[in-house]
């Protein structure tokens, strides 16, 4: 009878294996992660260190040489170049306009769509559809819809007697337009996350509160909203970071204009780096963006840890 469970060497005197099982597991594990680690080093950590260094240099386009200039680029950004604060202000206006609008709408839709009724799947599908659509296509279509007089939106407004502005040509309205269209594009994602969180709340809580005579608003305020807090935190940070890195949407809808009214940080980095080849300055901007994102992430992690306790 063949002893298939025993290795074929068992007849021979047994030799100690070269590696202990433990060592072997560790080596195998590193093999498993090696593509990821290699990619991480080459395309993320290396570039991250490089951008830190670049931000301290000035780049000569003709000789392609970098000269070390210390914190000059940061000084330029923070106190010399008037564009920077304008851009930063735009980014914050964009974020502060977008995040509450997005989250309120997402939560409202989620509350309406977290319980089954006829048509719930239809509405979920509709509200999520822009998420799977490319940002480029979305921006192109909305730019078309938001043209001055000929645009469909203004024609629609005209039919009810409203004289719509030339949305993308007036700085303030342009900001409103990019925020609102971006919210419509992305709100489905947060809605889905909220729906998942709502559906994870045991219905007993609500039933118990209702038996005690709580109104719908009280139930939301005192039961549902607190239970959603972790989700709200995650959504807040994801949406915030997402709004700081918005690029394609702006690039295609307004190109940063009019009068730099929608020139946001990500776009400014692109423009300085790839249009004007101010590599050092652009790198300093990138570092500033990195720090903003880092701070947001750290805030989230600290809050979340507190939340766990």
């Amino acid at each position, binding site marked *: *009878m*063949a*002893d*298939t*469970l*025993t*290795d074929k060497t*068992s007849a021979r005197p*047994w030799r*100690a*294996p070269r*590696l*202990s*099982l*433990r060592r072997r597991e560790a080596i195998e594990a590193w093999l498993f992660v090696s593509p990821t680690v290699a990619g991480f080093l080459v395309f993320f950590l290396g570039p991250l260190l490089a951008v830190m260094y670049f931000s301290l240099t000035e780049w000569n386009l003709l000789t392609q040489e970098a000269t070390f200039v210390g914190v000059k680029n940061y000084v330029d950004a923070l106190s010399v170049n008037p564009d920077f604060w304008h851009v930063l202000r735009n980014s914050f206006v964009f974020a502060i306009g977008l995040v509450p609008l997005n989250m309120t709408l997402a939560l409202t839709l989620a509350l309406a769509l977290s319980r089954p009724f006829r048509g719930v799947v239809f509405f979920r599908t509709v509200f999520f559809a822009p998420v799977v659509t490319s940002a480029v296509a979305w921006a192109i279509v909305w730019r078309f819809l938001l043209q001055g007089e000929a645009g469909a939106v203004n024609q629609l407004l005209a039919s009810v007697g409203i004289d719509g502005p030339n949305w993308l040509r007036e700085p303030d309205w342009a900001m409103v337009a990019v925020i609102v269209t971006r919210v419509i594009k992305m709100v489905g994602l947060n809605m889905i996350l909220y729906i998942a969180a709502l559906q994870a709340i045991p219905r007993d809580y609500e039933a118990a509160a209702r038996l005690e005579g709580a109104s719908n608003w009280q139930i939301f305020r005192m039961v549902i909203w607190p239970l959603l807090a972790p989700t709200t935190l995650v959504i807040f940070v994801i949406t915030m970071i997402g709004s700081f890195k918005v690029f394609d949407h702006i690039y295609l809808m307004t190109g940063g204009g009019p009068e730099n009214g929608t020139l946001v940080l990500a776009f400014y980095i692109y423009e300085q780096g790839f249009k004007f080849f101010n590599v050092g300055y652009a790198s300093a901007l990138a570092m500033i963006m990195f720090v903003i994102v880092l701070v947001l992430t750290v805030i989230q992690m600290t809050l979340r840890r507190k939340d766990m306790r």
Partner: protein
Amino acid sequence: MTSLTLRNLKKSFGSTEVIKGVDLQVHDGEFVVFVGPSGCGKSTLLRMIAGLEDITAGELYIGDRLVNEVQAAQRGVAMVFQSYALYPHLAVKDNMAFGLKVRKVPAEERERRVQDAAASLKLEALLGRYPRELSGGQRQRVAIGRAIVGNPQVFLFDEPLSNLDAELRVHMRSEIAALHKRLGNTMIYVTHDQIEAMTLADRIVVLREGRIEQVGSPRELYERPANLFVAQFIGSPRMNVLPAASVEKSLSARGLDIGSAEGVGMRPEHISVVEAGSGLLRGAVTLREYTGATTLLHVALEGGETALVVHNGQNMPEAGEDVGLEIAREHMHLFDSQGQAIRPLARAG
């Protein structure tokens, strides 16, 4: 020729030592059962033998081969898991053949072995099904079948019956016993269930906090427990242990000397109820639990302790009634201050 030798085996997870030096010799063809309270390291020890946990210190031999650093699959052991661990994406047949396939056993040979195992476990009709389409007992049989097809030298079972209902458990227990008789392999079996341990084992290993408390046949463990822990762990309901002082006087009245013993153990099933005022111990019945064949009496003794008594049939005392309790000399277990057994009960000089 597949004995197992465990020599001062140790296992630590990080800084906590879980197995604290186990020496054990398992003979060829023997059925050994590991028992012990939850968390004492039964599963860990079994998994060390299987090769699923690495060995921190000590030596493990299967046959005369040192296997500390041999991969699980090359140790010649098969394991039946508590959750059965059947691959959900494979049909029963493929589940059973999987190991053979990995080992590159030719297809006809594979087929033949799976058919044989299926026949012996009455699984033929189920070969095409998926695990989710099977009942608990059927899954259990497939798990055993999967272990059989590789012709392992040693079978390892980790609480294989604990997910089954009581009736099925009794049935599968007898099937495992039959399997052992038929195959004659060495088997190591972990369980919580005393009856399983007593009925299946050639020898039982009682573990506690990573150490062996006693190794012996079921009868040895029941009749001559080496210490208080084993005495109370084996047998159900558990053994009464009374302080020596509470029985010393009545014993010496009969010319029996308990010497240095600190505790006296008496199994509930060995105690009989006698008339109030007579017997070795006196007390009053506080509670009667009728279980069908027998009744469990809780007796509050004069000294303040409570003794359990398994009473069958005649002269059922009422709750609150005073009773006397009697036990034969050979059924008394004496323990010293360390909880170690002292025997035999000596007749006073």
